[in-house]
């Protein structure tokens, strides 16, 4: 479904992603595991096309020079130069890190805004699916998103991505800043999303322990480079992963 070939991303002369290649098959849950500054967010921004917008804005204001090399192929089509909003039309939807919701709008308004490309009927259907997937949100329908807890905001953010009706859902650090109990709830929610929608999911995460069990395939990256690959179960048993991520 998605293939990345020899991706390299530079911020000025600093190499954020180094010759990275990966594949995502339809229907899979694929993980990109890495510590802080490993290049996870840069990778997700490249897959979603957000980095192209960042590059244009930096260029306009004479800021940091962002250089991107390599290819992003989606279902046989090279989408490396396709803007983020057009990739969304292909079904590639990114849920950014740190609960990206619209804080001054209510939960329902957030979901309605997310349905920009969808008809009213489709938005209404997916909104109900969201409340079904995330019952916690049901009682806060008319509450401003900025007043929700971190975990609820993350659920809403995933819900908003679902309203777009993605074929490939990119989740960037969905567990960041959440308590262990809330992390468990969000992991459970992601599992439900997979079961009920069958959408292909790519999760970039530094909290490996809760994520690895649900992965069909995982990539471990450090300093922008691929260091390990394997199924979620293989990675869980790997001594290097155990040492780096489980403290064992």
């Amino acid at each position, binding site marked *: 479904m998605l293939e990345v070939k020899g991706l390299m991303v530079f911020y000025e002369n600093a190499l954020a992603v180094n010759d990275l290649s990966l594949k995502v098959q339809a229907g899979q849950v694929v993980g990109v595991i890495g510590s802080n500054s490993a290049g996870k967010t840069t990778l997700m921004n490249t897959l979603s096309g957000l980095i192209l*917008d960042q590059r244009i804005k930096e260029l306009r204001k*004479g800021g940091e020079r962002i250089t991107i090399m390599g290819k992003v192929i989606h279902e046989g089509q090279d989408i490396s130069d396709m803007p983020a*909003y057009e990739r969304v039309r292909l079904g590639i*939807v990114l849920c950014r890190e740190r609960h990206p919701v619209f*804080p*001054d709008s209510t939960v329902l308004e957030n979901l309605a805004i997310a349905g*920009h490309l969808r008809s009213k009927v489709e938005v209404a259907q997916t909104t109900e699916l969201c409340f079904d997937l995330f019952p916690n949100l049901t009682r806060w329908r008319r509450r401003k998103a900025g007043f929700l807890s971190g975990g609820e905001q993350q659920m809403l953010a995933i819900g908003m*991505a679902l309203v777009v009706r993605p074929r490939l859902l990119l989740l960037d650090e969905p567990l960041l800043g959440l308590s262990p109990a809330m992390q468990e709830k969000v992991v459970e929610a992601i599992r439900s999303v997979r079961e009920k929608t069958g959408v292909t999911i790519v999760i970039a995460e530094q909290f490996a322990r809760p994520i690895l069990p649900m992965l069909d395939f995982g990539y471990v990256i450090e300093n922008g480079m691929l260091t390990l690959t394997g199924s979620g179960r293989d990675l869980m048993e790997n001594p290097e992963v155990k040492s780096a991520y489980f403290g064992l």
Partner: protein
Amino acid sequence: MLQGTIIYGFINSVMLLLVALGFNLTFGISGVANFAFGALYITAGFLAWIGLNTLGLPYWLAGPAAVFITAVLAGLLYRFVVLRVRGLVVSEVIATFGVGLAILELFRFLGFIGFEYTLPEMLDLEVSLAGVIVDGQRLAILLVGAGLTLFLWWFTRHTRTGRAFRAIAQDEHTALTLGINTERVATVSVAFGAAYAAVAALVILPLGTIAVNEGYHVLVNALAVCIVGGLGSTLGVVVASFMIGFAQTFTATYLDTSWMMVVSLLAILVILLARPSGLFGSQKQLEERI
């Protein structure tokens, strides 16, 4: 006298609201302080005048045409000038102010000066409000002001483009990841803001003549209202319009009309010293945007 001052203060406040809504809308969504705003206001006035008097068009055609052309001009200004320097605040201000200055002084250069440059009144009647006579044009200002405020509220909540406006105003990157073409929507918001300026011009300018200097006054008033209310905050704009509007009218009544502009400038000065982010703006947003 007090009743009259209150009623005319209310009308003056609605006039300020009318000119500030468009400026605030543009800033809130695109993040660009459009310093060509006053020039666009005057352009709409002269375009309507040309349509009516030079081309002989009926008002129902000349008015909307002026609004449409002004909106397109603003969209082009954003697309081909502002977008190239977007994110560089000083350059944005210089670029928009420069274009505004060029437009206004071009009108002066082309000889658009004189008492013949007036627009017709919309309502030819007089009514008594609490014993105070109010002319039809000022009633039209009240109606259009209320109508445009309600329309903006409805538009940003119940239309696809309006919701995209709100999305970009809150978080442009998240909007982009939801499939919203943020640059196109920002261009539409600038055009929309200019259309608001144009409608304001069509209802306010019939009270006097279309004068180039009025463009500068409108810009200062819009800036004063938006800075006092909090840049990007619609509620702030409404509250600040009434505060400054009443302050101006009381000053004009009990001091002199020449002091009205001083009130606007003083309001900017006081709020920047006491609460730089404005009454309803947040300091964080101000630091991020300015």
